[in-house]
């Protein structure tokens, strides 16, 4: 390279340097603003980070609260069942006493008849007037017994609806099992959110949230619940299940008998360990197998919650 070329190259570099200086001057205010913004956003991010860690701790407390609610409802339900059992036992005792009284009335009437027959046989015609008087008194006694028997029957009739209502109360307590499953599913969701937050905080290099141990994103081995559990007394699902059982593969539309819609939710993948998932999360091999198996596979964890609600008729048809 000649000296001229070298000088020219040097001048070109100077031009480039000058251009950079000009550009820097032009963008300097913007860079200042950008720097200020980064400083502000850093403070903000730290606040967000602190809030997330704090909230994650709150989630753990919420989980504990939900567990407490579940335990409390279980205890309360058990107490209601105890009281219901006692009431039903008392009702049976009252009915037994009524039966005993009715038996006693019948025995007394039979004894009166025997006395009257004996008097007629033993006393002869000269005491007809006395026997007739005894018969009249016994008729009055029988009228009284009939009246009491009627009252006993009324009492018995009034006990029947009480027993039916008590049984209905006991059956209504199925809601405890259903709400327990609903609360378990909420707890599972909270656990999943906490795990996601942990992962986020770890990626941000700020460590884990303020808690001791993170629940698995997957339900635990004992976390067996149906996320779609609901206290639906319409009977739509039972009818659909009956139809399926009766062999109607397509199943009748849920709610066709009472105008209601399907009681369930849309198709979801299965969650491990018997917990039915309500969407989200990676599919396990069993989920995939089930999908390829037409949705009715023999899942070891029993968890395909997808599809439409089954009515009892559909279930019956499948099983016939």
């Amino acid at each position, binding site marked *: 390279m000649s000296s001229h070329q070298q000088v020219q190259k040097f001048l070109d570099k100077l031009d480039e340097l000058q251009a950079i200086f000009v550009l820097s001057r032009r963008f300097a205010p913007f860079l200042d603003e950008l720097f200020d913004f980064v400083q502000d956003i850093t403070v903000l991010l730290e606040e967000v980070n602190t809030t997330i860690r704090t909230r994650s701790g709150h989630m753990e407390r919420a989980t504990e609260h939900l567990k407490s609610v579940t335990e409390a409802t*279980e205890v309360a*339900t*058990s107490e209601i*069942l105890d009281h219901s*059992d006692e009431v039903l036992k008392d009702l049976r005792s009252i009915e037994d006493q009524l039966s005993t009284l009715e038996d006693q009335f019948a025995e007394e009437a039979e004894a009166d008849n025997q006395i009257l027959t004996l008097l007629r046989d033993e006393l002869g015609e000269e005491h007809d007037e006395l026997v007739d008087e005894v018969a009249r008194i016994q008729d009055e006694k029988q009228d009284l017994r009939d009246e009491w028997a009627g009252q006993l029957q009324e009492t018995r009739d009034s006990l029947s609806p009480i027993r039916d209502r008590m*049984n209905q109360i*006991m*059956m*209504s*307590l*199925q*809601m*405890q*099992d*259903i709400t*327990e*499953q609903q609360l378990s599913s909420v707890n599972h969701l909270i656990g999943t959110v906490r795990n996601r937050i942990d992962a986020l905080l770890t990626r941000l290099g700020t460590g884990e949230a303020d808690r001791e141990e993170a629940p698995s994103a997957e339900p635990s*081995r*004992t976390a*067996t*619940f*149906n996320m*779609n*559990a*609901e*206290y*639906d*007394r319409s009977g739509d*699902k*039972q009818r*659909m*299940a009956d139809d*399926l*059982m009766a062999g109607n593969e397509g199943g009748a539309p849920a709610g066709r008998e009472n105008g209601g819609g399907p*009681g*369930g939710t849309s*198709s979801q993948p299965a969650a491990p360990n*018997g*917990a*039915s998932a309500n969407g989200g999360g990676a599919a396990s091999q069993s989920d995939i197998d089930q999908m390829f198996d037409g*949705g*009715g*596979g*023999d*899942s*070891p*964890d*029993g968890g*395909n*919650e*997808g*599809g*439409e*609600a*089954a009515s*009892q008729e559909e*279930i*019956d048809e*499948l*099983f016939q």
Partner: protein
Amino acid sequence: MKFLIVDDSPTMLRIIRNALQKIGYDDIVEAEDGEDALGKLEDADPDFVVTDWNMPNMNGVDLTANIRDHPEYADVPILMITTRGMKEDVKTAMKAQVNNYIVKPFEPEVLEEKVDSCLEAVA
């Protein structure tokens, strides 16, 4: 007629027991999950099994499959009572060879109808 009822919810065990007693079945053994039920199977020697689906350790579908593989109890009627009311659930239960299926919450009349239906089917 001896019943083995399987549910991890003590509440449901009592409700099912009461409902069965109401329709005249008093000989009842309880188990808290599928594993417990399998362990009690031979001692309980049930004529009828009523099981939940979602349970820890072993769910109702697996329990059904295990009972169907059992040389002595393969033909025992199995009624599933569960909150799972989707078509795919019912189909899965059918594949596991339950005899009938009830969606919670249920009425005692439905339980009686299904028990009778199961007994007729295996008679």
